[in-house]
């Protein structure tokens, strides 16, 4: 019986190892051929041109800007919502909202993309009078909504874990409830909230399907109202028909994305560990 447990545990590790090794092996040749600096810092991506250019700086910047924008919008809303659910809301109201938030987490990403395409994209086009509404802005809004559930539920758990005695002490000293939540509960839960933010970053940077429908997918240097291509969509848009060096370069993009997500996971683990110890 123990052998079965050991085997199952080993499978997960094996998958991570296989994926890591595979990505490195298939991602490195193109980087070596293109040159690391040209690949990471090149400003132009034209993978099938007569003189192909494989610069992914626009993709990297787009992924960073898009994720940052989503965090900027999503974290304040998510945090305040978590405070509301954990502390302010009457039990019965929270009992209704919490399942709705969970439901939001369960909606497939393509549905977010579809709603974004039908509602958000025409709105952006008409509001800013641009040629097409597919843009970094539309992607940021879609991503912000998508990361809300994870931010809310992780922050809420962290806020609920704050010992009741801290809050009671604060209230006894004459602080109002709102002062208590923001000056006592939130600081006490800060590493849990930080973990929520990092988790949101991880979700946002890895999302492909939803933003492929609203980003426009042209590898421009990012600006808010122009069509942009993320690291993830860069792979998804071209993979199906790619060949040769182009295909290898797509694996290299995957490797870069993988490294990004690895870093985010390490940061997440640091926060979670501190949370346990603190």
């Amino acid at each position, binding site marked *: 019986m123990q052998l079965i447990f050991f085997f199952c545990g080993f499978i997960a590790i094996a998958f991570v190892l296989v994926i890591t090794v595979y990505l490195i092996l298939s991602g490195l040749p193109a980087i070596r051929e293109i040159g690391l600096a040209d690949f990471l810092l090149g400003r132009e991506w*034209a*993978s*099938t*041109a*007569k003189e192909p250019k494989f610069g992914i700086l626009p993709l990297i910047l787009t992924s960073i800007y898009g994720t940052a924008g989503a965090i900027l919008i999503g974290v304040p809303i998510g945090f305040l919502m978590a405070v509301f659910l954990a502390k302010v809301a009457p039990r019965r109201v929270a009992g209704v909202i919490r399942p709705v938030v969970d439901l939001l987490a369960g909606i497939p990403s393509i549905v977010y993309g579809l709603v974004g*395409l*039908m509602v958000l*994209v*025409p709105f952006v*086009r008409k509001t800013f*009078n*641009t*040629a*097409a*509404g*597919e843009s970094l802005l539309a992607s940021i809004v879609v991503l912000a909504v998508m990361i809300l559930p994870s931010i809310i539920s992780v922050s809420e758990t962290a806020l609920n874990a704050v010992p009741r005695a801290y809050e009671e002490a604060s209230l006894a000293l004459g602080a109002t409830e709102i002062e208590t939540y923001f000056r006592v509960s939130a600081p006490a839960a800060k590493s849990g909230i930080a973990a929520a933010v990092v988790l949101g970053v991880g979700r946002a940077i890895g999302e492909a399907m939803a933003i*492929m*429908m609203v980003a*426009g*997918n*042209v590898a421009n240097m990012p600006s808010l109202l122009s*069509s942009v*291509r993320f690291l993830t969509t860069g792979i*998804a*848009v*071209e993979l*199906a*028909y*790619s*060949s*040769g060096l*182009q295909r290898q370069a797509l694996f290299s993009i995957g490797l870069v994305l993988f490294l990004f997500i690895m870093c985010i996971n390490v940061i997440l683990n640091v926060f979670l560990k501190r949370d346990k110890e603190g």
Partner: protein
Amino acid sequence: MKKRTLALMLSAALCVGLLAGCGGTADTTQSPAAGSNSPAAEQSQTPAGTELSGTVNTDGSTSMADVMAAFQESFGDIQPDVTVNYSGTGSGSGITNVLAGTVDIGLSSRALTDEEKAEGAVENIVALDGVAIVVNPENTITDLTVEQIAQIYNGTITNWSELGGADAPIAVIGRDAASGTRGAFEEIVGVEDQCVYTNEYESTGEVIGSVAGNPNAIGYASLSAVDDSVTALKVNGVAPSEATVADGSYEIQRPFVMVTVEGSQLAPAAQAFLDWAMSADAADEVTAAGCVSPNA
């Protein structure tokens, strides 16, 4: 228990899929002549008039999916023991694979380059496909010249008012860099590597959807994929249709090519399939798939 059975069946199906993927052309053999008088053989137009068996592996252009589906179905009626496999990997890889000998017939949705012909690739045109230029139905423009289309796509013209339309920016919609349709369009119009796209999509359906939802948009798509949600523009005064593609008067068109290798003998089943696809008998299937047959 049910779940386990299902899981087993699914894994079995996966294994079969894996094995099928490995299947080479080695097993493509002609059946013994004994079966030559079967009823199916009498209907068939194959040169030998015999019933063949085996597998024909084709690989390449994704634009040819509709044509290949029609071919597979009809050829299955003529030669029931021949299995025609099709995998859509893109014109470039189809040509590469047939030259490398890993498939029987490569599929390309553009004419072969001189370079490819020099490597021994042989062009067999089985169908002609018009690339329609589509705009939103709200757009008042109905006719453009190839020159104007080129200027829109290379970024010289950026507002519909320059063409006599409404004062609105033009959203230039296209396909991803590896697409055969994009390759064909850019080559025919003469804007290779110069296009300034507003949006790029990975499928024809998304291009049509995007144009249908945006009054500023212009896009391109296979003629067969155009539906009522968008308007197909006249090019140099000629509306895209099967007739204008067949007689060559509609300029933005491309051939669907079955690629073989010069000097290498096809297996009998593959040869029969190619001969049939090139014959007038296959014209109905070509038409059914929304293309125009050059062999009708």
